[in-house]
């Protein structure tokens, strides 16, 4: 498949980075938000848009004066708002915080000069919510932008943003065998998003947002830490996790004792796993072995078979399971890899050294999924 791959676009940030997110509210453009993470220099947020016609990257650089960016989560409806966690540094101390930020309207399109940059400002400070706990991340409820889940330390908070400020709807604690830090969280996009999950150690705990009660749990038998998880957007009950043993595991959470499949293709930690939101056969994984991998798990997808074009009675496989392609564009650990929210065939990955790579699903796979004869 390699020969007819579209070349990846590589863009180097000035500083280290570990946060990358698709701007979900912008459904027109392939656009991502990237944050830098440096204790030494001023930090920035880049809004990177791929011009599909010219193949060029448009960048808008914004100052991020609050500190170093640890995570980004753009608002699902308003492209100018995003949730973020960041490290705030002073002379002798350093503290991780979380806030809602606002992107100012662009004054002038070509102002990427250092002195002239706009900066993102804190819209709502979430210090009071997190208290002494160190924020891990915050995620907007996909179907309701006024609500979000904030995870700090070992506590899971379900919050509502109102005129008066953030209100806590409920708070719960997720701790596994003395583990005091939740690793990550994820929304279940099914059933009106009334489930949100938190990951601690090797356990996924899912909460019912209507009550704040535990819904179900899932444990990785080997005890290997989970670093990332994602729900199948098109197939209820299915989710993927990735963790320290480099395995990508697909689960049906109704039968959590046995995984549906385990794919161990990364040789170090798997830091990011993402389902393609249009074609859930495709799963993206990235890890600290500097690799980004595009997997096909067609047999466990919402559409494993389809009507054959030639023969009405034959159901044919859309794709075989396995690695579609491994991308070797990075030279440092890749902490995030995200699908574009606008184009199902484009994704971005960011390695710690600040290398942002925009890549594409190989054409043959794309045509195969779209059922186009070439």
């Amino acid at each position, binding site marked *: 498949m390699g020969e007819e791959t579209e070349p990846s676009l590589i863009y180097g940030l000035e500083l280290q980075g570990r946060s990358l997110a698709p701007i979900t509210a912008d459904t027109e453009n392939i656009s991502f938000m990237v944050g830098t993470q440096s204790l030494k220099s001023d930090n920035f947020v880049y809004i990177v848009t791929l011009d599909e016609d010219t193949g060029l990257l448009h960048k808008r650089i914004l100052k991020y004066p609050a500190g170093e960016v640890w995570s980004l989560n753009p608002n699902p409806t308003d492209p100018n708002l995003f949730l973020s966690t960041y490290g705030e540094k002073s002379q002798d101390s350093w503290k991780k915080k979380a806030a809602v930020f606002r992107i100012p309207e662009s004054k002038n399109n070509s102002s990427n000069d250092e002195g002239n940059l706009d900066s993102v400002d804190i819209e709502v400070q979430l210090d009071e919510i997190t208290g002494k706990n160190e924020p891990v991340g915050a995620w907007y409820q996909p179907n309701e932008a006024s609500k979000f889940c904030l995870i700090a330390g070992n506590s899971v908070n379900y919050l509502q943003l109102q005129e008066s400020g953030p209100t806590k709807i409920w708070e719960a604690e997720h701790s596994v065998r003395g583990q005091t830090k939740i690793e990550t969280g994820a929304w279940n996009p099914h059933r009106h998003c009334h489930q949100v999950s938190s990951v601690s150690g090797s356990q996924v705990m899912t909460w019912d947002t209507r009550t704040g009660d535990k819904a179900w749990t899932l444990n990785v038998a*080997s005890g290997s830490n989970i670093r990332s998880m994602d729900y199948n957007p098109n197939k209820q009950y299915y989710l993927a996790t990735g963790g320290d043993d480099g395995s990508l595991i697909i689960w049906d959470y109704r039968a959590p004792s046995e995984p549906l499949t385990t794919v161990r293709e990364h040789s170090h930690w798997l830091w990011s796993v993402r389902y393609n939101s249009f074609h859930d056969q495709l799963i993206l994984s990235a890890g600290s072995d500097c690799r980004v991998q595009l997997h096909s798990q067609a047999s466990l997808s919402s559409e494993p078979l389809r009507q054959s074009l030639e023969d009405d009675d034959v159901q044919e496989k859309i794709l075989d399971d396995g690695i579609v392609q491994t991308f070797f564009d990075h030279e440092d650990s890749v902490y995030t890899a995200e699908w574009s929210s606008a184009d199902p065939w484009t994704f971005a990955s960011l390695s710690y050294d600040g290398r942002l790579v925009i890549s594409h699903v190989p054409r043959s796979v794309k045509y195969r999924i779209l059922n186009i004869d070439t």
Partner: protein
Amino acid sequence: MRVDFKSMEEEMDQLAESMSSITRFSNQISEKLRSRRQEVASLSATHSTLQKLECVLELPDRLKESVQEEEYTKAIHHWNKANASLKYYRDMPSFAGIQEDCEEIICLIQHKLEQRLQDPDVSAEQLSESVRLLQELGNPADNLIQTFLAHEAVKLDKSLEVLRAQVHLCQDPTKVNADSVVLMDSLEFIDEACNGFVPILADTATLFYQLFADHQGGEVILNDWITEHLEEYLNIVKTRLSLDKEERESVILVRALDRFYKKLSAATRNLPGLDTCQASLNVVLAVTEACVDATAANMEAELRENVLAARQAIAAPRTRMPPPAEGAVNSGGGAVAPPGAATSGINLIEMVNSLQDQIVDSLKTALGRLKMFTDPELTFSVKSGFRSRFSRDLIWNSIFFKQFWFIRDTCHKFTGDVTVPPALLLLLSRTCLDLHVSTIPFLATYTQDEFGLSESPNLSKICTSMASTSQLLLERYVQVESGDLSVLLGKSVEARDWLSSVEPRSVRAVMKRIVEDVNLIDSQVGQLYEEGNKKPRSGESTRRLGGASRARSVFSNYGNLDSSLATNIQKLFSERIDFFTPVKPTKVSVLTLIIKLGLKTLLECVRLKTFSKYGLQQIQVDCHYLQLHLWKFVQDEDVVHHLLDEIMYSAVLRSLHQPPVLMEASVVEVICDKV
């Protein structure tokens, strides 16, 4: 002279005259006697008729008498003689009466004879007499055959019942006391089986041919009948002999099989149209197969036990205690139980050798046991039907390959087992490698020689599979050991507050633990795998003079250089570290991979933290310590340098104080030397 002749002629004439007068007289006499003669003849005819009549009249009495004396042959003889005339004179009332009487008696005789046929205890002569007489009485042969065979079947069943009881007893020896039957061994059983059933069968057949020689289709009926019973018999024998699973019983078993085969073949050789050779050979094969299967099962059980024993030996706590104070992990390291301590004193190579020996021994023992079946003295062993099946199916497939596939499957299972001690993975990996490289081909040749087999088996599939299992186990070992190191390193970074560290005065205990563990892994792997190639070191002398000098220079530069420049320069000079290099079966390769993965984890953990000045310096000390101790284990020491550089560089990036303040290299060295 003429006168003489004349007188002689006259005399002759006189003689002729007197002769003719004699003839005349004689004729006259015989004429007169003729009527008399006729009277005498009719008188004698009358006498014989009267005699016959008397006989007929006496017949009922005679018959009765014979019946009373059980001389049925005589009775039937008389009856047969009289029967014709009786039938002839049936119209005469007196004769009809006699016939009725006789028929009644004959009916009685027939009934008695039939009764005899029902009686199992009747002797062979009586039986054959009965059958013959019944035949004479005009009973249809088909019915008689059925009755006859049914009679014989009772005897056969009786002997089969004895054998069946033995089978039950053998299957469930607890019944020994309940019944008065004593359990026989195979040989006794076969004697019983051959002396009971076989002669009966042979006798029956002989008798049958005597009795029903002329009967059309009788042979077919007989053969069907024999086949039916023989089948049952063979089944019983097969079941009983297949129950002999104990190794020490093999000698007896083989002798029993031989005796069985010989006797059955001999006994039934005379029976035309019946081939028991194949049937009995099938029994021999079935029993042999059962014996082979039992042997294979034994071997499997043995292997399982041996592996379990090895596992227990590895998991068992050592008497040698781990170094107490130093080995203990301080608060920074978290309370992880030392995973290596338990496996320190184990002689792995000894265990591998003994496991190998056990595998070889167990196969040799099994083959030795089975060799008895091919003793040329045995009648069945020279049969081609036995030979080919025995060697191809049983020796190769049911023993040789089955055993090695079982070993392979057993080992393979451990690759998915998260609880298995890593040393066992290593041990099995080595075992599989040895099996693949030498043991399997050796044992294949051995087997061939032992049984004089010309056809050499195709070993490639099992060998390839064994090799890949060995590789998988080794990969799994790397995964588990590097995982353990990672947990140790990860916790040691995560659990510490790096922002409020005090000035480092020593290497953190967890780093010493890491080095200890790596040493342990090194000794473990070193026992089983050869060293492997190291990249030739560029400056042997530099290293000897001061191992840390190079590293120090790199570290101390971070503070001055622009960080992104530093990283770019660094990347120019160092090769990219590939975490995907497949592990090779050498010590250096295994160690390199484990250390690489462990250090990578340390790197990842460091990047998630923020460091104060002293926190950074602690990392500096730790890295230097690792640098001093880990380089010697790996293939290419640059890999360790590079990774430690990256860790150091990342810690610098995560340092709160910019530009970061590092510790004097000489102080770092002093601290590291203190250990």
